[in-house]
């Protein structure tokens, strides 16, 4: 131990040894990222709400809730499987944790496929970023921005889950890393809980 280390410990006591908020630095970093991303999504949703509230001919093009209901169920269930993966990892069951993590990633892929299928359906009906057959052209830009940002996060999450899962299985990562990537996945699910009512359910065709 160097003279500098001894001097620091003598004068600063426990300041250098306690972790911020008593959680690992990696987890704190993920929480800070989640908070920042919450602001991004909130800004998008507030802007969407502002446009919707200020535009009299806002279209309500969604006739069926089946697709969005299935997507919601898949995403919520994937949060549960992620949680089971983190718990299994903490117990030391490497194979089980990897299995649950991959199931979560697969659920993310299914969600993304359904979402893209929905996008293609809307585009086939004539909806673009700047116009649509039902009302104001602002709807397309707002809808694709909000849902596009979300699906980007989902796809990034799937990639992250796959990489972390494989590295955990290979012994490079530990149970903490599974929990940390799980935090990100729960956040993605959490955002969807706000996107569904404001973007889909409030725009149901009556």
């Amino acid at each position: 131990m160097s003279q500098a280390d001894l001097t620091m410990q003598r004068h600063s006591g426990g300041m250098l040894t306690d972790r911020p908020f008593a959680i690992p630095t990696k987890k704190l970093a993920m929480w800070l990222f989640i908070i920042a991303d919450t602001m991004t999504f909130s800004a998008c949703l507030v802007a969407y709400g502002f446009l919707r509230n200020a535009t009299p001919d806002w279209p309500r093009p969604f006739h069926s809730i089946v697709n969005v209901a299935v997507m919601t169920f898949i995403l919520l269930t994937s949060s549960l499987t992620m949680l089971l993966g983190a718990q299994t990892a903490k117990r030391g069951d490497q194979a089980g944790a990897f299995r649950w993590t991959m199931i979560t990633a697969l659920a993310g892929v299914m969600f993304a496929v359904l979402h893209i299928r929905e996008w293609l359906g809307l585009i086939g009906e004539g909806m673009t970023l700047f116009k649509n057959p039902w009302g104001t052209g602002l709807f397309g830009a707002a809808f694709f921005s909000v849902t596009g940002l979300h699906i980007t996060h989902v796809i990034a999450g799937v990639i992250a889950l796959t990489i972390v899962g494989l590295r955990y299985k290979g012994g490079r990562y530990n149970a903490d890393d599974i929990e940390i990537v799980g935090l990100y996945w729960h956040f993605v699910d959490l955002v969807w809980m706000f996107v569904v009512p404001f973007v889909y359910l409030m725009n149901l065709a009556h």
Partner: protein
Amino acid sequence: MPTAAELKREGTGKYLVVYLCILAFAGLQFVIAYQNITASQMFRRMFSVALVEAGVAVLFFMHLWAEKRGFLLFVVIFTVFVLLSMQFGWTDSFRLIHCGGYCS
């Protein structure tokens, strides 16, 4: 494969209950969507349900409840403060829709 007793001891049963609660809240939002109410009423109800749903997910799925109280307060207070700060522009959206942009 863990037994039911082991799962219960580790709290997995608690997470299953939380999951079912979140599913129920999501279902409630779908029910609200088909109620014959005004848009503002629908927004208020859906937003309230979404807040509760998100709160439950953050506290239990993301384990914020199990973290140090200081960290929980940091996350909640900081996030809520910034989210509330974003809401200053709503009055302008009402001005646009009621006055067509020409009100002073």
